[in-house]
């Protein structure tokens, strides 16, 4: 039976779709059967991030409204035979889907997969409610900025109120040089403020831009630090005990020097 995991955020543009694509791929690379669902109805994106936009025939709303069977709508990944995408409808609005629809859909899929990842739209409205409806677990993505963390705090409250259990946190776009200079909130500070368990930190990394341009995901790129961070997140999600500080270990000597420097100064 699949674990249904929704990836959400309060503020938009913090990296939910990037996380869903990379985490889904990394889990499938480990041999799991994975489906990723784009629940951002009207703003379809996960397909282009995964480079599958040319293969779409049917979408989530077609399945919900009975025009297509699930099998027909699921798109197989280019590389991984056990990774599938259920795309969002681009021409419909989010009123086309209800939370009950999402619960029915994920229940229908559960027996065929090990993981079902749901890419949520930003915000606290209908689209968010739909995206978490079928979830057993929620991952909240934030960047280390005041506005994003504030909005993440709102989402923590809503997820808890929806009785989804304590959500876990992914901090995306950390710039370790800025953190070391004391000019960016650190992972520890964000975790302390939000008081939820972290599952990973992802560096701000140009390889994300490059791989997204090509419609490939960073986890396939051996040289991508962000890709490695997503692989570590997949390991933690799968239950492995991977220390969170793996990210800082990869910093250059200079960064580490300034890191010591900055800490002493405080």
């Amino acid at each position, binding site marked *: 039976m699949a674990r249904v995991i929704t990836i959400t955020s309060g503020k938009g543009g913090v990296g939910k779709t990037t996380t869903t694509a990379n985490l889904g791929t990394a889990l499938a690379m480990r041999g799991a059967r994975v489906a990723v669902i784009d629940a951002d109805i009207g703003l379809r994106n996960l397909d282009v991030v995964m480079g599958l936009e040319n293969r779409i025939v049917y979408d989530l709303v077609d399945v919900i409204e009975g025009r297509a069977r699930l099998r027909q709508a699921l798109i197989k990944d280019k590389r991984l035979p056990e990774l599938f995408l259920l795309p969002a409808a681009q021409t419909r609005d989010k009123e086309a889907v209800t939370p009950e629809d999402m619960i029915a859909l994920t229940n229908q899929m559960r027996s065929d997969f090990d993981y079902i990842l749901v890419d949520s739209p930003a915000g606290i409205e209908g689209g968010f409610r739909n995206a978490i409806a079928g979830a057993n677990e929620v991952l909240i993505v934030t960047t280390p900025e005041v506005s994003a963390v504030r909005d993440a705090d709102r989402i923590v409250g809503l997820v808890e109120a929806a009785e989804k259990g304590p959500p876990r946190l992914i901090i995306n776009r950390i710039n370790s040089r800025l953190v070391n200079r004391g000019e960016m909130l650190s992972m520890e500070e964000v975790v302390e403020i939000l008081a939820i368990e972290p599952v990973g930190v992802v560096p701000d990394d140009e390889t994300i831009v490059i791989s997204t341009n090509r419609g490939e995901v960073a986890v396939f790129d051996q040289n991508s630090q962000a890709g490695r961070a997503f692989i570590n997140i997949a390991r933690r999600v799968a239950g492995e005990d991977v220390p969170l500080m793996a990210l800082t270990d990869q910093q250059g000597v200079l960064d580490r020097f300034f890191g010591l420097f900055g800490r*002493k100064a405080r």
Partner: protein
Amino acid sequence: MSFFNNLFNKRERSAQVAKERLLTVLVHDRVKLTPEKLEELKAELSAVVARYVPEAEPAEIEVTLLRGESADMLKADIPLRRSRHDE
């Protein structure tokens, strides 16, 4: 170290500023105490305090919402006037 810090870096690091602003904004998001209500609270509090502690400086009472380790706090600072024979 702190000498250099003071020399070249008069301004507080922005991460520290961000953290303080976040902590404040989050408590205010959670505890819906509007600025007007806070003013009312201060006024009533100073009236009560003045009845019991004549040394209190009602005009200087400060009431703040703080994010604490395990619980959020409503903190009141009430300065007292020092009378002559204390010194």
